[in-house]
């Protein structure tokens, strides 16, 4: 009865640190001290652990109990260490054997009655435990399915402290995760591209965006269908690979939205933060330890900013780094964290504050000054990254009566997108890219250069000053995506012409 040690994992953003939980029990006046930089929520673990041990029938030593969380210099927070602390104390009390604890990672929050409660971030914790060479993980039952997504490490779920003690003493068994039969995509979304009528041009633009991974902006009067289109973009994006789905699940695990995923969800996510969102909500942050924001929750998915020009200027500008690097680094007092944030951006905006500008039958009431102020909110660097600008016209009566053809269904569009992406992957394999939107200008104009005949229109535009060099490159990227969609080997004059039309003007609102 004196010394014992257990292991757990502390999370800093998505990366983990193995935390050693050492317990020393000495014959002294009774006290319970927790050292090793615990924050307020972790210090309260002493009360939970004491009650849980007592109420589970193991008692609590009337001695001096010192628990050290090492490395002592790393700040620790949260309730996920409760179970490791309790087990460490019980091992020091010789209620459980010490030997099985050596390669075991223990995660979980304790209730006062000794029951185990689920904690956020279990998936990245288990991933780190496997990486650190642990052979097993014990976690609360509520986190079991999530933890079970990680291969190559034994994952066990426990309902309460007593069941773990029994298991360590070879008197009982713990729950094993249900075998994942396969990557089952979740229930099909009710949103289908075929529901969009009378917007064939916009739908084609959306398919091009999906095929090439291009960021897209839609400008149009209220009610024209911008949101409807954006919501259907995930339905025409290819399913995530296992690796991507795990990355996304890890972010969601930290964000702690509380939904216990039963299976690895391979559908690309759709995030639509409200325009009043703070910068921290958008890119991540919060007090103490940073938490992932909307850009990270949209990782490998779609970030939709409706009423984009109503967002705070600095919130929009904070998108520049993730758009550039595909990740965000956030620093807070509790530490810094890097979260992945490779998303496809979809912006929707009204043409002017009143939203009526450009309509045939209504008059815009905004002053020129108001319109300028409005459009200036989106800074050049963000605008620069948007390949496609779609002007969304309100649907006329004819379309509603079914006089226009409805567009392709999501399944049809997805098949085209997948084919186009396969073509791009094949061509770009030697360059280290997967999507046309990732290819830099010099490569587009150099080794991937296309015939002068196809470029005639574009060259003329550049000469006439109607497009910038950057706009020129964007048109080339789009032309490649269109060629991939059409199954042509190389973009010709037709594809370039469509690209120029999709690219639109350098100004967001087409002015």
């Amino acid at each position: 009865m004196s010394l014992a040690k257990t292991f757990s994992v502390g999370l800093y953003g998505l990366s983990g640190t193995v935390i050693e939980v050492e317990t020393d029990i000495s014959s002294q006046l009774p006290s319970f001290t927790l050292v090793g930089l615990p924050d307020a929520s972790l210090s309260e673990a002493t009360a939970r652990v004491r009650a849980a041990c007592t109420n589970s029938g193991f008692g609590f030593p009337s001695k001096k109990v010192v628990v050290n969380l090492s490395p002592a210099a790393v700040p620790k927070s949260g309730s996920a260490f409760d179970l490791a602390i309790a087990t460490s104390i019980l091992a020091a009390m010789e209620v459980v054997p010490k030997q099985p604890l050596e390669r075991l990672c223990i995660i979980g929050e304790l209730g006062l009655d000794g029951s185990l409660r689920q904690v956020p971030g279990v998936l990245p914790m288990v991933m780190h435990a496997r990486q650190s060479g642990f052979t097993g993980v014990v976690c609360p039952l509520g986190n079991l399915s999530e933890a079970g997504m990680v291969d190559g490490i034994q994952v066990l779920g426990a309902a309460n402290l007593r069941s773990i003690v029994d298991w360590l003493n070879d008197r009982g068994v713990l729950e094993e995760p249900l075998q994942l039969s396969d990557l089952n995509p979740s229930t099909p979304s009710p949103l289908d591209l075929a529901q969009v009528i009378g917007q064939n041009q916009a739908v084609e633009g959306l398919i091009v965006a999906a095929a090439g991974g291009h960021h897209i902006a839609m400008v149009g009067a209220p009610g024209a269908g911008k949101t409807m289109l954006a919501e259907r973009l995930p339905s025409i994006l290819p399913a995530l690979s296992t690796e991507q789905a795990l990355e996304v699940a890890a972010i969601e695990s930290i964000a702690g939205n509380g939904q216990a995923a039963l299976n690895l969800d391979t559908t690309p996510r759709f995030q639509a933060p409200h325009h009043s969102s703070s910068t921290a909500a958008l890119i991540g942050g919060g007090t103490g330890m940073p938490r992932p924001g909307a850009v990270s929750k949209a990782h490998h998915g779609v970030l939709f900013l409706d009423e984009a020009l109503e967002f705070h200027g600095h919130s929009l500008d904070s998108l520049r780094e993730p758009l550039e690097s595909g990740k965000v680094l956030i620093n807070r007092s509790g530490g810094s964290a890097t979260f992945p944030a490779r998303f496809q951006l979809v912006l929707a905006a009204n043409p002017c504050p009143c939203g009526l500008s450009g309509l045939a039958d209504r008059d815009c009431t905004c002053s020129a000054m108001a319109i300028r102020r409005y459009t200036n909110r989106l800074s050049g660097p963000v605008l620069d990254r948007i390949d496609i600008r779609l002007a969304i016209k309100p649907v006329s009566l004819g379309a509603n009566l079914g006089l226009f053809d409805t567009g392709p269904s999501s399944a049809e569009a997805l098949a085209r997108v997948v084919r186009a992406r396969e073509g791009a992957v094949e061509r770009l394999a030697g360059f280290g890219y997967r999507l046309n939107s990732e290819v830099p200008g010099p490569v587009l104009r150099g080794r991937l250069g296309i015939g002068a005949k196809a470029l005639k229109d574009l060259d003329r535009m550049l000469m006439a000053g109607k497009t910038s060099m950057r706009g020129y490159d964007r048109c080339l990227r789009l032309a490649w995506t269109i060629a991939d969609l059409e199954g042509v080997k190389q973009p010709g004059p037709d594809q370039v012409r469509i690209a120029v039309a999709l690219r639109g003007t350098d100004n967001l609102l087409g002015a």
Partner: protein
Amino acid sequence: MTDARQWLGRYGEDRACEYLVGQGYQILDRNWRYREGELDIVCVQRGTLVFVEVKTRTSLATGSPFDAITKTKLARLRRLAASWCANRQVSNSQVRFDAIGVLVRGGRVTIEHLKQVL
């Protein structure tokens, strides 16, 4: 304080004294009262002056006897020890503070001795 509890405290202290004497301690003072309280036992062993706080219990229902020794009580013990030294003009001596828990249960007496609790 009721007579029964007074008697129990007294009984526990007697047992503690017997134990200490058995361990080779020499008792210098018992129940030394001064302004704010009382020193249960003052004794000496191999030149070290030992102030002992004794707690007696008849059950563990409210925790171990030691659970009743709080930080405030230890601080008072320390002040009383200083007063005792001043009063007896003892100086330059090694000093230690101990706690003794006496459990009287079913006719059996269990004594637990914690050294250097302060």
